[in-house]
């Protein structure tokens, strides 16, 4: 492991909670509905983060707890029953309904598992119910996906068929590219989790080789391991380097020679390097500060340093699983400062002191930093854009070069007036 400096910080935070991951999960599985059992705050959070007005009826909603629900839990369970019944009769096309716990439902100890169990019996063969928590007292942002996937694992049937299982939500086009490349490598049995239809869950077992696409799935990985799956250790497929090592690790697990991998992906690498050039020109030598939010920060830091030649000031992450991240950490330059957790005020002090060229941060902080003259990139864009794989490396770099390029344009001397 490279000599990386680990720090922990606690204090007030500025991050989304796990409920936010519903925004991409519901798009991945169009036959699923996500019902948050929570407060008006939860409903407001999701609509604010997602801009849901474009939908006539979104495939997520909130059962808002009211005063009378807090008075007696028995009544709350009945009320939830009623809401679910209404919802199912209104949306008969729904195949899987996720009951998503929130901060208030966790605090009053609303037992969503029992509710789900009862509903499963009643709607047997029509709708499946699963529950997980996306609460802010337990989860940060992307950890919501970890909870949702973990909740699906018990529904996955066993099979000893040999397969490669890609775990973590991917953009559909990226998924297709990966499958094609794996096919060229000779790995034809490739499935994805989460699948595109909630009812088409992959079967798993001891010959399932799991390759993570996202770094925030600690609990999911643990449970897949318990089901006998083999976990392939690799960096994450962000950038050329990460993706190459990711393909190599998969190939090794399937006993495919390195030579074969290089033969297949070399043209992609050459093409990607070419595309990366113009972005690198802008990013090279620029100083980067990553605030914690998506858990993608370490992989992004590795990509932006190793391939775009940016200098890392601080790499924040809301949560660090050193085991899961070891391949990534090994690729970081010496003396990289990783900070797990957050004290947002102290961290912002460090941002100002270090005078970075670019800060990766949440939407609440971006404009205030811009107003102070510091260029920013919102981290939420990383989970909505197709950024994985060799072919997307330049697009990923583009997310970071664009604010800097814009800054150059807008501060150009031609704007000077008298």
């Amino acid at each position, binding site marked *: 492991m490279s000599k990386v400096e680990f720090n922990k910080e606690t*204090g*007030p*935070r*500025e*991050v*989304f*909670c*796990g*409920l*936010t991951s519903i925004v991409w999960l519901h798009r991945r599985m169009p036959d699923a509905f996500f019902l948050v059992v*929570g*407060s*008006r*705050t939860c*409903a*407001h*959070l999701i*609509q*604010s*983060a997602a801009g*849901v*007005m*474009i939908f*006539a*009826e*979104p495939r*997520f*909603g*909130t*059962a*808002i707890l*009211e*005063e009378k*629900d*807090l008075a007696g839990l028995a009544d*709350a369970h009945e*009320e*939830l029953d*009623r*809401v679910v019944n*209404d*919802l199912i009769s209104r949306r008969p096309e729904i195949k899987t309904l996720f009951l998503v716990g929130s*901060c*208030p439902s*966790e*605090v009053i100890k609303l037992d969503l598992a029992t509710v789900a169990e009862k509903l499963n019996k009643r709607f047997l063969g029509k709708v499946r119910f699963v529950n997980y928590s996306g*609460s*802010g*007292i*337990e989860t940060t942002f992307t950890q919501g996906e970890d909870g949702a996937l973990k909740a699906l694992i018990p529904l996955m049937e066993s099979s000893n068929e040999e397969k490669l299982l890609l775990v973590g939500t991917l953009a559909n086009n990226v998924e297709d590219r990966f499958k094609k490349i794996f096919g060229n490598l000779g790995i034809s049995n490739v499935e994805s989790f989460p699948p595109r239809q909630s009812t088409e869950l992959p079967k798993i077992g001891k010959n399932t080789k799991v390759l993570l696409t996202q770094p925030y799935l600690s609990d999911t990985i643990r449970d897949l391991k318990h089901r006998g799956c083999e976990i392939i250790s690799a960096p994450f497929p962000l950038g050329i380097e990460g993706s190459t090592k990711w393909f190599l690790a998969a190939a090794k697990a399937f006993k495919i020679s390195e030579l074969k991998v290089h033969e297949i992906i070399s043209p992609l690498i050459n093409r990607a390097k070419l595309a990366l050039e113009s972005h690198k020109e802008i990013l090279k030598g620029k100083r980067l500060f990553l605030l914690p939010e998506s858990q993608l920060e370490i992989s992004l830091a590795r990509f932006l340093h190793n391939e775009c030649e940016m200098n890392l000031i601080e790499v924040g992450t809301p949560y660090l699983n050193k085991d899961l991240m070891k391949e990534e950490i090994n690729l970081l330059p010496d003396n990289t400062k990783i900070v797990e957790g957050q004290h947002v*005020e102290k961290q912002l002090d460090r941002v100002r002191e270090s005078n970075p060229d670019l800060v990766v941060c*949440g*939407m*609440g*902080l*971006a*404009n*205030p930093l*811009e*107003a102070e003259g510091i260029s920013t990139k919102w981290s939420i864009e990383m989970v909505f854009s197709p950024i994985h794989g060799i072919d997307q490396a330049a697009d990923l770099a583009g997310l970071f070069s664009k604010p800097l390029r814009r800054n150059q344009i807008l501060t150009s001397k031609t704007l000077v007036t008298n």
Partner: protein
Amino acid sequence: MELTLWTYEGPPHVGAMRIASSMKEIHYVLHAPQGDTYADLLFTMIERRGQRPPVTYTTFQARDLGGDTAELVKKNIKEAVERFKPKTLLVGESCTAELIQDQPGALAKGMGFDMPIVNLELPAYSKKENWGASETFYQLARTLLKEKVNSSEKINPLRWKELGRRPKVNILGPSLLGFRCRDDVIEIQRILSEQGIDTNVVAPLGASPNDIERLIDAEINICLYKEIAEASCEWLKRNFGMEYTNTIPIGIKNTIEFINEVHNKLDLPLSNKEELENKSKLPWYSKSVDSNYLTGKRVFIFGDGTHAIAAAKIAKDELGFEVVGLGTYSREMARQVRATAKELNVEALITNNYLEVEDAMKKAAPELVLGTQMERHSAKRLGIPCSVISTPMHVQDVPARYSPQMGWEGANVIFDDWVHPLMMGLEEHLIDMFKHDFEFVDGHQSHLGHTASKTKDLISSDDKKDNNPKEGIIWTESGRAELTKVPFFVRGKVKTNTEKYAILRGIPEISDETLYDAKAYFS
């Protein structure tokens, strides 16, 4: 438990944040878990604010719950006070913290600070954003003026005469995330100063705690947004005898009435009465022959109480529209909205559920929708022109240009904003009329995008599917052909009416003649 897919208002602590963020030298310590920080983006992204809201979130986690969350609250309060040095501290909790009952307000008061501390108790499971904003502003005024309640005499609105100065008023209610508040304040101040009236304090927008203490230097209060300021105005009236205005100056008639009301309350003679009608272009634009086609346009209105009521009056009296629907999500203003609806002979729709609003909109078959951003989307789906008149805020509702709703310029803005979508509607009609002409390029894009044409398809596929709609009624070839000649935005209404007529008369087949019979019957 209430199933909510989308909501017009946030929780009450977001209302408190609106007050805190609108003001200076105030800090709000909010006992809340980490996810609640999403609310910052409402201010930094939607309002494009260059500062973070002055809010510290205690960020408690599950593992803290077993231990001492009260200590965590105190630690955060201490740090926030040291770092931000506020003149006044607001302390409160969000929905989750309300359940663990740490009573952060009481904790803060026991910490020995010498600044005023406002303990906010905002019931998250029964109240909403606007209520929270109103309550916060009210508690703030109460706390900061507490000591003056008994020592001050009742304020005589005529005292400016004895004091030998121009009359002074406060403008209360404008806040961040309020609809066009920034520009309304400028417009109202301009109008008042033209009349020789000075503004003492604008609050909460831009005010400091010190300004709140100065509120009683004014003679009367202008209650600009009842949702936010009415409770405070009422308290100031009860305790200091300060009168406040009731008229919301949106539209020409209401602006004139507002000016009259202010003059009456201050006993200030109104010298330029005749000029007032000509301060805005709206009256003449509305009168000009070009606007003839606006007569009797069917308009559906939904929004917060203040803007919905104002819109209904302008629509009817100043633009000559027919109001076919009126509603609000502001339960606190339901009574006033119902009264206005009654005057207009429509039934008021009081609801939080946008799907109900969309249904009502569909049934009313309007030619123009005045609503929130959500109604804009619903109207788009139905292919009806729409203009946005109310919160909840969207980044589009914070335009770069000066764009008030109130006063003379507000009336100009309203004329343009409401009439332009209708002109587009007219254009849409022309596209429909000329689509068979050979000069007309096939696939001409509607300005409403693809949704509008989809809606048209919906209606026509409805026609096909519904060949035997209600009780065995059949549309004949001629009836169907005639229906397609009806402008798209009333086609649905004509179809329903004709069917209704056919059922009434026991006519089994609808021909072109039936269509005309029904038209005559219902006109």
